[in-house]
Structure formats: structure tokens, C-alpha cells
């Protein structure tokens, strides 16, 4: 796997009130992988994504996207925050939320037009939510809200997708629908990075994995490094995975 490096993280340290939540992370994510970030609660999984995207300011270290700082490469990156991070009572429709994905390419002041609307409708169709385009977002189920978020990322037409727990609180059919879309993205050569909780599904869904617990424990292909040893190092208890292929 001597691929191009899509995301490179060097010596990244992030602290909340001088307490490091991520310590000296070095990470290289090759282009075209579907990668899970796993680790216990409070391991800094979401923080890692937010620091890569410049939402949080690290106290040390640097991040590059295809060799350049994130600020120069925004157009290449799409982000799906945790569903719980927004107020779903906000007065807007599903279509409008998806349109927000186009704002990045528009830049300041310029407004979305027909082209952006068309792209948003296409993205809604891809996630099977076209019928709900006019629905107020609080009237959607948890799984539907997650699909809307996914559509909003798809409309950005990025090269790298960061997703923070996209399977949280969704039913089985939505989970399958989402993972199929993620696999399709990988097939199209995109890089997809997912904060993931369900260790059982890691080998089935992902081809790359990063173990994280404040420090990076391991990163690499699932088939090589998803083993009891790394799980134990990450979760601190004796972990037996019975699902290894």
C-alpha cells in the first residue's frame, strides 16, 4: 500500500484547559482507505477529527491534507459532525440543510443558485431521502437526520470525508444504507475516516483502522492490526475478538 498520503498528522497535541486529550499524535492516512478510528470514551476520537479540520486549535503539531495545510485544502474535505451537535428544531428543511454543503465552494457572501440546488437534490436521492426534501428537519427520524447529514457531505464532492459517529442512534437498515454509501465512496477513490464505536463491525465495514486512546496505539490495515493485542492496549482490559477472519 505505497499510496499517496491523503492526511498527514505530525506531533499533534490538543489540550482542554491545559489537560492534553490528544498527545503527540503522528498519523498518516493513505488515499482511498475506509478507516475507522476506535478507542474508549474520552480517547479523543472526535477531538482528533476536529483538530484536523481546524475546528479546535492544537497546542502543538501540524496537519496537512495532500501535503498542504487544511486552510488551503478545504474544498477537498467534507465533514459530518455528530448528529447531536446541532439543534434539530432549527427552522429549516432537509433540502436546505443539504444545500449548506455547497456553501464552502461558494465562499463568503455569494448565494446558492440552481446549480447548488440541483446538486443537493442529487445528494438527497443518493441517500434515499428525496421524498423528504421539504420536510422540516425536526420531523425526521434519527436515521433520516443522519442521512441528511451524509447527503450534505456528499454534495461537497470532496476527496476526503470525516464522519463523527455516523451510526449513532440509527436503525439497522439505515446503518447498512450508510455503510454502502461509504463503500461506494471508497470505490470511487475517496478517503473516508469514521469515528466508530462498534468493534464487532470493524472488520466487516473497514479496511483500515486507527486505535486511539489519548495517544495513538496503532494504525494500519484491519487485517494486519485489528487484533487482541491492540484492542487490549487501547481499551486497557483483556479483549478477545472472536470475529477475526
Amino acid at each position, binding site marked *: 500500500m505505497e499510496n499517496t498520503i491523503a492526511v498527514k498528522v505530525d506531533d499533534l497535541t490538543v489540550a482542554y484547559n491545559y489537560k492534553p486529550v490528544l498527545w503527540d499524535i503522528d498519523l498518516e492516512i493513505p488515499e482511498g482507505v475506509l478507516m475507522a478510528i476506535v478507542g474508549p470514551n474520552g480517547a479523543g476520537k472526535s477531538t482528533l477529527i476536529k483538530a484536523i479540520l481546524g*475546528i479546535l486549535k492544537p497546542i502543538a503539531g501540524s496537519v496537512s491534507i495532500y501535503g498542504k495545510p487544511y486552510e488551503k485544502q478545504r474544498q477537498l*474535505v467534507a465533514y459530518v459532525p455528530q448528529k447531536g451537535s446541532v*439543534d434539530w428544531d432549527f427552522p429549516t428543511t432537509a433540502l436546505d440543510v443539504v444545500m449548506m454543503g455547497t456553501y*464552502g465552494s461558494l465562499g463568503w457572501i455569494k*448565494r446558492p443558485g440552481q446549480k447548488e440546488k440541483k446538486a443537493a437534490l442529487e445528494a438527497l436521492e443518493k441517500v434515499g431521502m428525496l421524498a423528504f426534501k421539504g420536510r422540516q428537519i425536526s*420531523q425526521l427520524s434519527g436515521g433520516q437526520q443522519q442521512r441528511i447529514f451524509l447527503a450534505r457531505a456528499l454534495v461537497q464532492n470532496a476527496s476526503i470525508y470525516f464522519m463523527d459517529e455516523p451510526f449513532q442512534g440509527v436503525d439497522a437498515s439505515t446503518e447498512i444504507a450508510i455503510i454502502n454509501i461509504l463503500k461506494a465512496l471508497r470505490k470511487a477513490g475517496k478517503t473516508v475516516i469514521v469515528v466508530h464505536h462498534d468493534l464487532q463491525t470493524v472488520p466487516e465495514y473497514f479496511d483500515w483502522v486507527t486505535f486511539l486512546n489519548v495517544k495513538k496505539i496503532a494504525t494500519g490495515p484491519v487485517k494486519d492490526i485489528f487484533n487482541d493485542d491492540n484492542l487490549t492496549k487501547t481499551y486497557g482490559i483483556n479483549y478477545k475478538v472472536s470475529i477475526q477472519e
Partner: protein
Amino acid sequence: MSSAQIEIQLIASLVAVACAIPGTFLVLRKMAMISDAISHSILPGIVIGFFITHDLNSPLLILLAAFTGIITVVLVEYIQKTGLVKEDTAIGLVFPALFSIGVIMIAKNANDVHLDVDAVLLGELAFAPFDRLIIGGTDVGPKSLWIIGMILLITISLLIAFFKELKVSTFDKGLAASLGFSPAIIHYGLMSVSSVTTVGAFDAVGAILVVALMIAPAATAYLLTTDLKKMLALSIGFGIFSAVFGYWVAHWLDASIAGSITTVLGLVFLLVYLFAPSKGVIAVMYREKQQRKEVSLLTFLLHLKNHDEISERHVKHLNEHINWQKVRSRSVLDLALKNNMIDIENQIVSLTKKGDEFTSKAIDYIITNRDAQIEDMKDDFFLFRG
């Protein structure tokens, strides 16, 4: 109407619009209390500005006072960031401190000038037409009309230019940041507009009542629409209506204009709160009652579907079996009959074909939670409207 009356209503309406615009975003960002804090803590800014300019309508005074508003926000955030106190506590710590500094400054230095706490807090719209702006010897109208007009113009231009940025950063700060729309810039932009508006409006309606004009119309509009643009339009509409109607209430009652406007704002909110079509208290109560009835109906139909035995389907037995009061059983039976879901023959209840199909579909829906299957049922039943 005299020209002074028209001028007063015009000023009040412009203030209402200038407040409704930032107010809508404050409400959506759950920052209503920040406007209260700003409205108090601009007092020291006004006092200092007044010492320098000796003119309550000077643009320099407005900027200085607005700056105190920004300081309030910064201090609140700083205290909150330490993690030692929560945001509402931080607000409660900062604005009384700044406000009291203003009160002391007035008491120490401004006893003999035209500046007192009442004037700042309550304003006096009735006097606004007396303070004229005279350019080259011509009277071009009341000063406060020009001031609030300018502020409104700036606010509207900013709203049009940055509507999409305001929307995305209000809805999803993380996305806004990752797209390159700095939430901090937008946040402080909004805070600046709110502060300038508060200062610009204080001698018309008073710094305290500005809060009502910012929050009440937006809160009212929020109950009526699920579209941000419509929410803005409705806020503006409620603001103007309350300003004009409040003026006439004050006229009839011979009372404070600002007080009357605020009372009207409160009444408008109360009416909408009670009678709003989908979010209003009465609509919600009605819907819950319907839902209770429909859940009962479904329980009843399911019972019929599960039991072929005659003994289980006798009208009288149903009370005991499903454990309902008589009245409830009666109303459920009536509802089922009215919808042609059941037949009653010799006190024995049985499902009709329609009732049978409906029950299967409803159970299917509850189990799979698939919306598409029940689109056609939604018209008849509240239960499935989510």
C-alpha cells in the same frame, strides 16, 4: 395624525425592525439572555460617551457604548471558559457589575446634566420628535429617526450579505468552521450589531425594552414557522405591529409608549403561544388527546384481531379485558364505528375488512417504522404524523 405622531410611530417601527433581525438569530442561538446583559452593560459606555461628546445622539457615543456591549460578551465567555461557572451565572456576574459602574458614574458626575438612569433604561419616545437634526439650516427630521434609520440600513445590508453564513453558523458551528466561515467572526459580528442596535434604540424605547423588541417577536415567529426567512419576516411584522398598535394603546391610556409596546408584544406572544396552529398549547393538547384516542383505538382493534372467541369480543367484556373506563370504551367504539372499522351484531364486535387491513398496516408500521407505507393513513390519523 400630527406629524409628531407619525414620526413617533415611524421611529418605533424602525427600532422594532432593527431589533427583530438580530433578535431572530439570538433566539435561535439560545442567547436571549445575552441581549439582556448587553442592554444593561452599555450604560457605562453611554456615560463615558456622554462625558466626551455631550450629545446622546453622537455616533461616537453609540460606538463607545456598543463597545461596552462587546466587552460584556467577551467577559461572559472568558468567565465561562474557566469552567468554574456556567454561562447563565457568568452573564449574571458580568452585567450587574458593568451596569453598576455606570450608575455610580452618573451619580458622581452627571447629576447636573441631562442624563439619568431612568432616561437610559426606559427612554421616552414621546420626546423623540423634539430633538431635530438640522442640516444647513433645514430641519430634516428627528435625530433618532436618522440614527435608527442608519443602523437599520447597516443591519439589513449585513443580513442580506451574510444570510447564508449566519444561517450555517447558527445551525451547525462545526460545519461552518470546517467550511471556512469562522464562527467567531460571525458571532462577534452579530454581537456588534446587537450592541449597536441596543444603543441606537435606547433613547427611543429605553435599553431594557430593547430586549423585548429583540426577543418577543422572534419567539412569537418561532412558534409559527419552520422556515428561517419566514421567521425573519414574521418577527419584523410582529415588531412593526406591536410598535404601531402599542403607540395607540399608549395614546388611549395616556401611558408610557415603550411600556405599551412591550405589553402588546407580550399579548401577541401569548395569543400565538395559545393558538399557533401546530406548536400552540391548544393545538398540542388537542393533538395529544387525539393521539390518546387513536392509541386506544389501535389497542382495541388489535385485541379484536387477536381474538376470534366470541367471549372476548362482547361489548361488555371489552371493558374488563382491556381495562378501560366505560366512557373511554364508548368513545373508542364510536370512533371505530364511525370509521367503518368494526361491526356490532348482538353486542358482539368484529373487525370489518377495512378495520382488518388498517390494523395490519398500522402494526406493520409500528414494527418497521417505515414512513412510506402509511402516507395515505396520515390524513385520517394524527398518530402517524410523527
